[in-house]
Structures are given as structure tokens and as C-alpha cells.
């Protein structure tokens, strides 16, 4: 296996080069800043939930490695229209996939995000992949700031 085929696939590199929803948000209902003390990666996730509890808009800002940035970008692309409960379920599935806790990715729930399954071969990079997700959950909890532990 090569790092180009199992970790840095074209889709991931593309999201790293051109991150989607990469901006601060006016009028966000939930926001949180997350950082990874090991490598200095730092990002902020913005969410706008409607009264029915559905995510209408999601965006992020910050700096980090290709894994953390593309993971954040793909997360924002996949959260729109999801309920808070669905978003938390996706975090749980995503975390299980990249830590290797789940043998196979929950493709039904994760869809294109299953591309991050290769991360489980790189234990030191798991926190890069989950940073955006934990930050999203922190925003939903409205607890201010979080680290990717």
C-alpha cells in the first residue's frame, strides 16, 4: 500500500486544496473552536440550526494538515439537512471507522466520508481526522472549546 492510495486519495487532496464551506458564518446559532495540541491544528466550526433542530448551514475556518482540513471540508458538505441527532450519530460512526473500532465503515451512514477509512492504519493521524467532528459536537454542546482527544 502507498500513502497515496490509502490515505491521501485524490478526493482528500482535492478538499485540502479547495476546502468547501471554508468561511466564518454570520448569525451562527452554534460555534466552537477546536485544537490539537500535538500539532497545533486549530479550527472553528459554525452551525446554523433551524427551530426544528435541522442543520441549515455549516462552515469552518482554521488551519491544519491535509487530513484535518479535508475531513472538516467533507464533514460540512455532508451535514447540511441533518438533525442534531443524526450529526452526532455520524460522528460516532466516523470515529469508530478511523480508530478501527468498527471493522468496516458504516457506508450507509457515512457515504463518501468512508474514504477516510484508511486513517485507521495511521494511529498518529486519527486526531487530525476527528478534530472537525469533535469540534462540531462541541458546538452543539455549546461548550466553548475542545481538543481532539
Amino acid at each position, binding site marked *: 500500500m502507498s500513502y497515496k492510495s490509502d490515505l491521501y486519495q485524490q478526493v482528500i487532496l482535492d478538499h485540502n486544496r479547495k476546502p468547501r464551506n471554508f468561511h466564518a458564518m454570520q448569525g451562527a446559532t452554534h460555534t466552537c473552536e477546536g485544537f490539537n495540541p*500535538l*500539532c497545533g491544528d486549530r479550527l472553528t466550526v459554525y452551525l446554523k440550526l433551524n427551530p426544528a433542530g435541522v442543520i441549515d448551514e455549516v462552515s469552518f475556518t482554521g488551519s491544519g*494538515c491535509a487530513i484535518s482540513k479535508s475531513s472538516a471540508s467533507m464533514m460540512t458538505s455532508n451535514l447540511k439537512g441533518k438533525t442534531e441527532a443524526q450529526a452526532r450519530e455520524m460522528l460516532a460512526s466516523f470515529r469508530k471507522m478511523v480508530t478501527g473500532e468498527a471493522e468496516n465503515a458504516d457506508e450507509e451512514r457515512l457515504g463518501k466520508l468512508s474514504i477516510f477509512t484508511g486513517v485507521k492504519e495511521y494511529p498518529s493521524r486519527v486526531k487530525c481526522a476527528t478534530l472537525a467532528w469533535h469540534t462540531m459536537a462541541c458546538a452543539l454542546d455549546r461548550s466553548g472549546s475542545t481538543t481532539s482527544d
Partner: protein
Amino acid sequence: MSVIMAKEVFDVDKVRAGFPELLRSVNGHPLVYLDNAATGLKPAIVIERMRAFEMLEYATVRRGSYRIGEDATEKFESARADVARFINARPGEIVFTSGATQSINLVASSWGRKFLKEGDEVIVSAMEHHANIVPWQVVCEERGAKLRVIPVDDRGELIMEEYARLLSPRAKIVAVTHVSNVLGTVNPVREITAMAHGEGAIVLIDGAQAIPHMKVDVYAIGCDFYAFSSHKLYGPTGLGVLYGKTEILDAMPPYITGGDMIERVTFEKTTFRKAPAKFEAGTPPVTQVIGLGEAIRYIKSVGMERIEEHERELLYYGELALAAIPGIRIIGTAPQRASIISFTLGDIHPHDIVTALDHHGVAVRGGHHCAQPLMDRFGVPATVRASFAFYNTFADIDTLAEGLREVVEVFS
């Protein structure tokens, strides 16, 4: 009559054969180990000496009046004498600690708590490792003293005029690194020490990064303390050294207390032994000390001059090879440098570079290198660092450069 001695050629292949881990392969490639500033690999001779000691010679030291205890004590103290000779000190001035970090903590805690008062100043530099910042920060906070910082210029050198300005009768101690673990800069420690002494301040030099690369003479430097770790000098982990001038060590209270460091204990009062025993409470890392003694013997047999010369060539070759890579920015370009190169590559994150290079068997470090204030100074969140030891080769550097070219292709 004159005799012309043929200069003995440095045989890197012969050296490499003595380091078993260099024979490893990683991800299907031979290991190219370029993280020597983090820790050095161990030569077989050191591992075998420690094994032999553990198998047949091991006993506790400075306690047993039985034969094997006395033998172990003699070897232990003889290793202390080897360490002392290695840096031109006396055995009584060598305190064994758990590492350079603890050596600095010992001084900050013991000397700092006794001698720092409100309004005093502690001077460090902008290129310090966190281990030579945080202990001072903590003791300054506690004593109401102030931490002052010598700035670094764009090449990665200390700005000596600013240092001169910081020195005043308020400055009580200057704690500066001999060699930067990020930039490789070799600091003018003699001059730094002389200037501090001129103002009545004492000096601690963090030698963790200098000790594997150059001949260190604490007497010539004139410093009051010199700290380093065994594991960066190809010895075992869990062991460090603090050199301290006897009169200063004697004036300091114990750092941790317990067995083996006392003269007399009653419930009313305890009196302590003299340094270095005063600072070595508990059973010391006996085997590790024997290992460090062997590592020093090994280094001497290779020859520090030859190590310096080979590493100078590696640094020169490495700089040329890396400078040719598109988008590279080398951070730290001081004229006097040890064989450490830090760099960034376009806007590719150092951790992505490290993962990619790992697939070529190349081990380099990516991150802030425990020097976040220095990262801030150069406006980068992190760098990649390649650090060379005397067992590295030009071919190692070629592999690094090749890997970096591929990284540029993949990520751009």
C-alpha cells in the same frame, strides 16, 4: 626527523555496522533515521555493556559493603569520572538526573526558590526548548521574579545587543541553549557567560543538543551549570547530567529528598550530604550510568573531531540538496550551526510531509519541536526537522530529497 601521518579516513560504513537499528527496514525501505535531535540510536557496544552489567555485575551502589556492591559502586563512580572528563569537569560537579529536563528543573526549583526574590529577573532566549522556559516561568511566578527574553534575528541568531541591554543588576540567572533544537544555531556561550558574570548573574547552559555534536568544555565556557541527556549522546534514556560549580551546588538546598542523600536523620532535624549526593536521593539508575560511560568511551573512540567534520559535510550537502526543492523555506541560516535543518515546504503541512516521508523509510520530525515561542517568532505553526548524526550518509539525504520531490508533486 618528521613523520607524516596519514589522516585516518572516517569510515561511515564501519560506524553504521555498529548500530543494529540502522539495519531495520520501514515500510519496505531501509530505515533512514533523521530524527537524531529527538534521540540518538544506540550502538550495540552500549547495549551489550548494559546487558552484561545487568546479567552479572548488577548490585545497588553506595550502600552495600559487600563485594558486589562495592564493585558496582566503583564502576558507577568511574562512569561519573568519565562523564566529568568528557566535559572537562570534576566528578564532584556531576549530578545524575533523569534527563536534561530534570537537570534544568533541579536548578530552577532548588537554586531558584532559595535565591530569587521579588523584582529579580531571569533571562532566557526566544529559541529555548519548553524545558528551558516553563521551569523558569513557574519559579518566577512563585517568587515574584520576571522572565526576560533575548530576541532572535531572521537568521536565527541571538541579538547580542539586546542581550546586553537586558543584563542589569536585577538579572540573577541567564538560562540559554548551547545549540537550538530547531534552528541548529550554535550560540556564543562563552561570550554570553562572560557578559552575565560581568553583571553578577550566574549562567545555565542547556547542552542537550550540543553534546552529541561538539567538544564541550565547561571550564572554557565558564558557565555555572550545564545540562544534558544521555539518550541524545547514544546512551540510554532515563538519565541526564547536571554539571554545577561546587560552591553553587553546596549553597543549594536539596531538590528531592529521601534515602542516600542524608548525613543524619532524626525526627527533629536532618542534615544532608554534600553535592552531588545531596541531589541524588533514592537508588540511582545504575545500569544507565554504566551505559552512558560506555557511550562516552565509544564516542571518544570514533573521535569528536571526526564526528564534527562528517556532520559538517552532511549539513552542507543537506542544505544544497534541500535548497533545490521547489517551495522550500529553510528556517535557521546562522553561519554557526550543528547538523539540524528545519524547513517548511510551500503550504504543505509538516505532518503530511512526515507521513509521506515515512513511506520512504525516512524518519523526520514534524511539529513545533517543543519551541512554540520560536514558531511564533518565525510565523509558522510547525516545521519539518531533519537532524543528522555521524552515522548518516549522503545517500540518506538523497532519499530525503527524493521523498520531498514526490511530496511536492502529490500535494500541489
